[in-house]
């Protein structure tokens, strides 16, 4: 049965937490009180709100303020101490970058060893070194072909194929 007061349940329910917190003006609290007296469902809701608040009756054990704390902090503040809890370094230099560094070092070392082994292998096969390379004489047929070529770009492109 709807209680015989002005406030509906829909209007009353959102006011209950503020009422329990003592944060409603008398203008809002007065009709709510009347509604709660008349409405068992909303009264039950208020009761549950009160039950929940009772869990906050006991704060956690206090940490005592150490002797001389205020004097010490004031001294540090006036000396320009920025405090212990400084911002973290940028993430790029933090966690993300760290696992990559050893991997890069290992890869660089492996590449260096590979190059060294390759150089040794080349030396053993007695292949000519870079500074010992000489241009060979062109075959006679290539010399004749080259002599007949005009010196224009289009013709160079057209003559690009070795099988013509």
């Amino acid at each position: 049965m709807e209680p015989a007061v002005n406030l509906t349940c829909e209007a009353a329910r959102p006011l209950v937490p503020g009422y329990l917190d003592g944060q409603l003006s008398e203008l809002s609290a007065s009709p709510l009180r009347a509604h709660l007296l008349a409405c068992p469902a909303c009264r039950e809701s208020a009761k549950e709100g009160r039950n929940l608040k009772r869990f906050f009756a006991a704060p956690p054990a206090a940490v005592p303020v150490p002797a001389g704390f205020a004097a010490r902090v004031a001294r540090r503040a006036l000396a320009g101490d920025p405090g212990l809890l400084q911002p973290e370094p940028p993430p790029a230099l933090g966690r993300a970058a760290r696992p990559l560094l050893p991997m890069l070092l290992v890869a660089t070392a492996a590449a260096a060893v590979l190059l060294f082994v390759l150089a040794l292998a080349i030396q053993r096969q007695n292949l000519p070194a870079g500074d010992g390379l000489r241009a060979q004489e062109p075959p006679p047929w290539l010399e004749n072909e080259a002599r007949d070529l005009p010196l224009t770009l289009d013709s160079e492109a057209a003559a690009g194929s070795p099988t013509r």
Partner: protein
Amino acid sequence: MVTMHELAREDDQLVEEALGGNALSFQLLVERYQERIFALARHYTKSAVEVEDIAQDTFLKAYRRLDSFQRQSSFSTWLYRIAVNTALDFLKRSGRSPVQAVEDPELSAAPVRALAGSGASLSAPDANLRREELARITQRVLEELPEIFRTVLVLREFEDMPYQEMAEVLGISIGTVESRLFRARARFKEALLRLYPEFAAGD
């Protein structure tokens, strides 16, 4: 008896003197608020060393920003704002509590449904329960909550802060304080009944 208004005026005077380089005035400000800031920090960590670190950092930050204190709110509200941000930064950096947006629909929908009556009702804690045990249970449940919900519950339930001051500390509207508290309580109830089903009310 010293009124709130007189306290605020004394705070303003001490701030002026501290800005002028008076170490004793700043020390007096720290002494006024150290207990409250330690108590607030305690809700974010069990470690006494970390509580002291958060409190110390709060006061050092406050001193560095003292010239930006506009007196639009009281010094205590301004200091609380720094303390809450320092504690949340601390949690974020230590990776203990990831930041979650309160407006996330996934985060808000389920608890609202729970509070709307679809879940079990909550009974009051047993009167014979020792205070230490009750505190342990409450802290255990609070640890389950996203820090944004934990903070509104701490400010409202332990610090007994009015909605207006909570709004100033958190930099949000009173309407947002109310809806955030609503969701925080729903989330608290859900976690409490999940972890300690013995607190479900018998029908």
